[in-house]
């Protein structure tokens, strides 16, 4: 039986290695400096993913600015402030948000932001990503805060500090590494999201000039190139994927080595 279960595990790890090595093998061919800084060009003229890399970073920045403070605050509420039925309801809502398919989040942001503004925008894309980020950050923050020993809270309160100073000055700093880890993993997660961007950030073939305009992203670019009929664009999709994977796996693996814990 051990052989059978080991085989299952081996196949899963094998699938990972096959996928990753195939991406590296296919992607490395089209990867060069020009590709990383140029914007998309018509078929046959080369072009690159510079605008998509920049666009993805802009989207990550917008969603982090919105999502990190909100997510951490919700985590603080769940761990330090909320009690009873309402806190239970909030925790349930946060879990609900985690489980919502990201495409539905996209439809929601389209309905409340894109339609009233009448155009796709980087801002709408950032909000969609933030909505995915908040529940992830909230739950990891809550768990990290709950790991802080109770004696620390009691000690600070016994010294006469009010609750807000205990929380902001003692508990959160004590849990900061864990909260940062959760934030990094959330960023890694949303940097791979495509579906919520399709009709919020939309995509663009130019460098971003305003947050109020459609913006390119690595993932949407990969999708558009992958379903195109051109071999050249397929090759570029693989190269863009390699860049994306370096970012996503880079965050995941470095978090693992920094924390040496399983999340």
């Amino acid at each position: 039986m051990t052989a059978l279960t080991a085989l299952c595990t081996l196949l899963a790890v094998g699938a990972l290695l096959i996928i990753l090595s195939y991406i590296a093998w296919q992607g490395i061919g089209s990867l060069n400096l020009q590709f990383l800084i140029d914007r998309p060009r018509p078929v046959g003229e080369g072009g690159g993913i510079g605008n998509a890399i920049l666009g993805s970073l802009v989207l990550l920045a917008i969603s982090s600015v919105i999502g990190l403070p909100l997510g951490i605050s919700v985590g603080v509420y769940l761990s330090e402030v909320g009690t009873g039925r309402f806190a239970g309801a909030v925790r349930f809502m946060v879990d609900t948000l985690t489980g919502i398919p990201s495409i539905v989040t996209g439809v929601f942001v389209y309905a409340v932001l894109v339609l009233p503004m009448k155009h796709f925008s980087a801002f709408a894309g950032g909000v969609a990503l933030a909505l995915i980020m908040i529940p992830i950050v909230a739950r990891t923050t809550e768990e990290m805060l709950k790991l802080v020993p109770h004696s620390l809270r009691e000690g600070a309160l016994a010294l006469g500090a009010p609750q807000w100073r205990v929380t902001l000055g003692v508990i959160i700093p004590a849990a900061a590494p864990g909260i940062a880890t959760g934030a990094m993993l959330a960023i890694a997660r949303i940097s791979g999201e495509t579906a919520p961007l399709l009709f919020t950030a939309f995509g663009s073939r130019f460098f971003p000039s305003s947050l109020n305009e459609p913006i390119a992203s690595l993932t949407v670019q990969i999708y558009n190139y992958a379903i195109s009929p051109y071999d050249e664009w397929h090759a570029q999709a693989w190269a863009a994927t390699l860049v994306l994977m370096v970012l996503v796996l880079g965050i995941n693996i470095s978090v693992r080595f920094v924390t040496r814990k399983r999340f």
Partner: protein
Amino acid sequence: MSAVEHNGLRFGFSNWRRVLSPTGNTGDAIFRIAMLLVALLMVAIVVAMVWALATDALMSIRQFGFGFLIARKWDPIKGDFGALPFVYGTVMSSVIALAISIPFSLGIAIFLVEQAPPYIARPVGFLVELLAAIPSVVYGLWGIFVLAPVLREHVQPILQTAFGWLPLFQGSMTGIGLLTGGIILAIMVTPIISAVVRDVLAAVPGSQREAALALGATKWEMIRVVLVNGAPGIAGAIILGLGRALGETMAVTMVIGNRAQISPSLFDPAYTIASAIANEFTEATGDLYVSALVELGLILFLVTFIVNGIARLLVWNVTRKTGGVGRAA
């Protein structure tokens, strides 16, 4: 703040003030109000989501009623919108995914929790979890250019020769269709299911294992005892994987063929709810078309909401009872 002021302030609004600030400190009151507002925002977002989806879907709901779910025709040009092909594609691709993924996930979890020594279990467990970190669109790309050709050239011909008498394996072998979508989904949900099953198995008390072994059970019989003990949690893990598979968009969209049809063959193209929204939303012309797509989104929201709720209840019950190691603990 002096005691007099303090009491004076407390006097008028004693009840709600005590709730906001049990210590009577103004800073605490501000802090707690701020946190409460953020918490309310979470509730508001979920409520707004249901409300926005429902209002935008209203036109389609009024036009088609419950018949929307069982109508087979999706014809945007004629204004005929029926969701059955999408419901079928979503359910079938998820069922294929779970059928493949469940044995693998259980095998992986059993190996990592019960059999492998820690110096193997930790790094290997991390590698399996990395599968969940690969973005959906990357699975899609890999599915189009690697998995689909392999299935077309090598797997589908074998299946057709062996089981061709079943309608499931008849038809043309293009490599793009329901089967490919299901297999891609299986790879994507396996790390999720196996991670939760690992938590569930680890939460089964060691005394159960010792008791089984003390009664003379073999290692495998002992594992069966552990599995029976964790059964509700394992069911929860599987349902959690189902919730993920139902809503998965990009990878499926790229390999399932995107044709709104109900074909008995697994080799034929199909369409899922999420894929339909992803493909047609920006191109939809006419209010009814958009409304029908939003209604698809509403259906997806409600289904994943229920599925995830059930899953969480099951997993939470198991990992909580033992004060276990699970995330839910």
